[in-house]
Structures are given as C-alpha cells and as structure tokens.
C-alpha cells in the first residue's frame, strides 16, 4: 500500500484498503477557523442537540486567521461565536485573536504548535488543510456539514484515493523554490489533473528540502484538484517535531510493492522559476518568458508563501535595494513575525530589510490572500496587477474582479518588486 492507503486502512481498522473503496475513518485532529467554525458549530447543535458535547476536546484545534484585522462587524461576530463555543465546550486548543496565544494562518500554525503528526488523519474546514501532508499524515479539507459530523462522532467517510507519485530527482537549482516546482506540476497536469487523488512527493530533491519547503508542495495540491498531498516522514520531519511537541505518533512508510496511478519524474534541468498567469494556477509559464509584464503591486504572505523561509528568500534579493511598486508583506503567523526580527542577513534583521527596501509589513493573518473585507491589509481594491506568493489567482480572489494576480515564488516576487515587471530571480542571486 501507499502511505495514504496505509494511514487510511489503519484508521478504518482494516488490514488493507483499495483505491475507490468508501471507508469510515477515525479522526485524530479536526481543524477549523473563523470563517467555517461558526456555521460548523451551528450545524453541530442543530443535529446533535443544543447541549451536545464535542467527541474529544483534545482533538479540536481552532485557529482564527481569515478576517482578523478588520472593522467588519460580521467578521468580528464570527470570532465571538468561536469564543462562546470554546468556553462552553472547554476546548483547550484555541488561538484567540488578541490573546498571547494568537497565531495567524492555521496551516502554518498547526505544525508550529505540533498538531501535524506523521501517520495521523487530519480534517480541516479549509482546502489548504492538505499542507500538513508534508509531515506524512493524511490531511484534507472538508465542508461544515462533514466537520459538524466529526465534532459529534469523531468519524467521517472517505473514498480511498489513488496516488500519483512525483519524484524530484537531483539537486534543485539555487534560484528555484518549492513553489516553482508545484506550479510547474500544476501547469503540466492541469487544475483538475489530480482530482480525487493523492499527490505524493519523493526523490532526492524533496529529501533535501526543509519542512517549510515541503509544506509549499503539499499546500498547493488542491490547486491541481488533489485530495491530499503526502511526503514520507524522515529525519528532517522528526527533527522539526522533536523541537515542537511531546505528542506521540506512529510514522507510516510506503510498502515496496505499493501501486500508483502514475509516477512522474522531474530532473533539475526541467526546473525553472515559474509564474501562474491570471486567472488560473494552471496557466503557467517560465518567469523569463513573461519579462516585461508590467506590475503595480507585489504581495508576500499566506500559508503558501508567508513562512519564515519565504521571507528569508525574499530578503536575500531585496537587501540593499529598493522596491519600485507597492509591496505588501504579511507573515503567516506570530512566530514568523517574531522570526523576521530575530533572523539576520549580515547585520540587518529581515524586518529591517523589508522596512528599508520600502515594503509595508502587516500583522499575521490571511490578509489579502482571499480578498476579505474592503479594509483588509494589501487587498486589491481596483484594477491592480499583482505578483504574489499566494496560491490562487481566480478572478477577484485577492479583492476586485478587475485586478489580475500572477503567482510566483518569493524569489520571483521579490525580484519583480524591484523592477516593477515580472523578473527572473536568477539575475539577482
């Protein structure tokens, strides 16, 4: 069996499962946030009764992140609903806005807090829940009804997916980031190329990646329609976890005779800085073919491109220079934000580098990645043309339907922010 099949079989109490089979699995963690938490709780109460209790408070993780720094009254009310539910149900893992515990973007916060664990089953009311698959767990997004069902029962049905394996062989060029690799794959297979399937990443290129880069790969499987992304856990995974959690877990490795839907290999010569043009993550081209594309906004942030290593990469290019277009940077979490101050390149902190180069730095949250209320930091309110480290460039995704979004790696976004047009970062490294 593949890693995904083995995890699902174990959680269904079966010795073996086959792709296509519908099974009921036990859930290890349910993740929700401020947008989908409140309607999930409403369905939970409607279905299980007003006095119903969640199946296991230890297994519910609530991380508000979407509409945080806004004056929108409905958005604020959502956070209130989370608070009421948390206190009524006595839920220990709540990262409240304004509290010392506040974190920011849930998919980056979840591993930081040690909830992304090898061999486990994680469901979240957010499509990028797939991110945690970087830790060798089955992690996927669901809707509110499914989440309410889990809250009451601790179980959910899933169809066992076929696995598409992507092997990245050899050394990744220094100017190529995980974001370029996943954009390349999505461009090759299309935005529904992995529909209903697992995307598994392996090979020496992936083994050499740190956890944050691996998370960028699994984060965007949903943009190819994938059900989950997964990477076999290894020493890099265990080293990350040892620093962050005491929780126990049982890693799962692939069987030698595992069967795949397909196996695709990429070698280093095929890897280039890539850009997804408006309005689809699958509409990709190498950055160098899009030189001269004029931009008036750059954005660095989100669960895809707002981790500390993403900012480090951007800062390497920006340092000692100046941006020529409005550049918004939003650390994914409070930990990333603190990291910007404590991490240095030569004598300057990353924070200073962003400030000195003319970038605006926003508070940790999803911010303009999904548009959000009109007063959201960095939101595209008009016909802006933006290059962004985020994951989606659907019409109106970052705000106005008139705006256009190009998706790229932190290197490419930083280099483009300097020139005001799409720029291959190779020239700046």
């Amino acid at each position: 069996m593949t890693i995904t099949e083995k995890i699902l079989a174990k959680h269904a109490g079966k010795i073996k499962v086959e792709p296509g089979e519908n099974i009921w699995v036990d859930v290890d963690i349910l993740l929700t946030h401020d947008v989908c938490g409140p309607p999930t709780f409403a369905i939970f109460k409607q279905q299980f009764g007003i006095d119903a209790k969640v199946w296991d408070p230890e297994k519910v993780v609530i991380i508000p992140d979407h509409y945080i720094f806004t004056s929108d009254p409905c958005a604020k009310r959502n956070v209130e609903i989370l608070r009421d539910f948390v206190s009524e149900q006595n839920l220990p893992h709540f990262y409240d806005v304004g509290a010392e515990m506040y974190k920011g973007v849930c998919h980056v916060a979840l591993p930081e807090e040690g909830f992304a664990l090898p061999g486990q089953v994680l469901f979240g009311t957010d499509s990028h829940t797939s991110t945690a698959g970087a830790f060798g767990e089955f992690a996927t997004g669901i809707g509110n009804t499914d989440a309410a069902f889990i809250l009451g029962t601790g179980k959910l049905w899933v169809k066992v997916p076929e696995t598409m394996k992507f092997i990245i062989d050899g050394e990744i060029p220094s100017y190529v980031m995980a974001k370029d690799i996943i954009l390349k794959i999505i461009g090759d297979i299309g935005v529904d190329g992995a529909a209903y399937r697992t995307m598994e990443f392996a090979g020496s290129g992936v083994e050499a990646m740190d956890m944050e880069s691996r998370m960028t790969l699994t984060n965007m499987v949903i943009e190819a329609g994938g059900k989950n992304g997964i990477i076999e856990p290894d020493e890099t995974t265990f080293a990350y976890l040892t620093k962050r959690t005491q929780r126990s877990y049982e890693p799962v490795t692939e069987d030698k005779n595992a069967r795949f839907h397909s196996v695709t290999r990429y070698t280093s010569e095929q890897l280039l800085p890539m850009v997804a043009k408006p309005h689809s993550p699958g509409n990709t081209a190498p950055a160098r073919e899009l030189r001269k594309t004029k931009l008036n906004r750059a954005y660095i942030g989100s669960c895809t491109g707002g981790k500390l290593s993403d900012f480090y990469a951007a800062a390497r290019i920006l340092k000692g220079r100046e941006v020529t277009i409005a550049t918004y940077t939003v650390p994914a979490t409070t930990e990333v934000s603190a990291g910007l101050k404590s991490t240095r390149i030569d004598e300057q902190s990353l924070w200073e580098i962003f400030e000195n180069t003319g970038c605006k730095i926003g508070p940790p949250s999803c911010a303009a990645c999904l548009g959000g209320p009109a007063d959201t930091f960095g939101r595209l309110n008009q016909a802006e043309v933006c290059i962004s480290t985020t994951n989606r460039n659907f019409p109106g995704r970052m705000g106005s339907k008139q705006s256009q979004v190009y998706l790229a790696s932190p290197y490419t976004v930083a280099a483009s922010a300097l020139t005001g047009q799409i720029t291959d970062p190779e020239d700046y490294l």
Partner: protein
Amino acid sequence: MSSIIKGKAFVLGDDIDTDQIIPAEYLVYRPDDAEESKNYGRYALSGVPSAKSGLPAGNIPFVAEDGCESDYRIIVAGKNFGCGSSREHAPFALQKAGVQAVVATSYARIFYRNVIDGGFLTPFESKMDISIRIKTGDVVEIDFNQFKLFNRTTQEEYSLIPLGEVAAIVQAGGLFEYARINKMV
C-alpha cells in the same frame, strides 16, 4: 424527492471556482439566520466575470439586482465545477438562490462532497460537455430515474452519469439523514 426537475438553465464554462460562486467577502453572513442567509442567494455566482455569466451570450446576471433568488433552477457547466476553497457556503448559496441541480462534466471533490453531505442540491455529471450545447434560458428537464436531461427548448436529449455509491446519501437528503437511517448517530 421528485424524480423530475424542470426549469430554466444557467450556463457557465469550465473551472468555476468557489470564489466565483460566492466571493469571500460575503462569507461573514450567518447561514443559520433566516434573514441574513438571504444574502447568500443574493450574491450567488456574483464573482463570475460578466462576460462569462450566462453563456453563450454572457453578461446575464444570475440573480436580478435587489433580488435574493434566481430565475434559473438548473446550472449547466463544464469541467471542474466548484474548484478552490472548501467553503460550504458555495453550495448553500446556490441552494438559497433556488438552484435544484447542477449538471457539469466534472466536479472538484470538496464541492462535490459538500453538495452531497449537506444535501443542498443534486450534482449530476454529463457524459459529454453539454455546456456548449445549451443556452442560458433554455428550459431543461432532468429525469432522475432515466438519468437523462431533456432540452425542452430545442428538443434535444443528453445522457447523465448515474450517481453511484453516493446515491444513498443523496436519496437520504444528506450525511446526517443517511447516518440516522443507518443508525450511526
């Protein structure tokens, strides 16, 4: 559930994502509040670029200005309908607008799951891409038993793919109803 759905079709293209079905800025309304939840009907499909709204002509609003319900009962679309975010507000918005069925060549999986487990409407898959053969405003009829779609305006007929294993959940009316019938909750 009646075995026939009849109504005017609203036609869309490929890869209609959930931000187009219900833009993120409207997700703040409470779905469980009768008055507030009308907004989901009001803004359903408001994120679709105008030129692609109501094909083949385009520039047709799905919901009339100031309205909360649409004249169109059936959505006909191409591949990968509902891609993008996991927001269950998307099928909910279509339901609030009065949509009873979607016919697409394929669906993104979270949307498909949400439609079925939430019991919002019925998602059919067509054997061929009929979004290029049906015009917005055509009166169409879907027969659940025969898995056929009839275009009453042009008198054409198309085959739909049977629902398969999820039919039991669709027939029950959603995941909770299904689980109750099967004594799981």
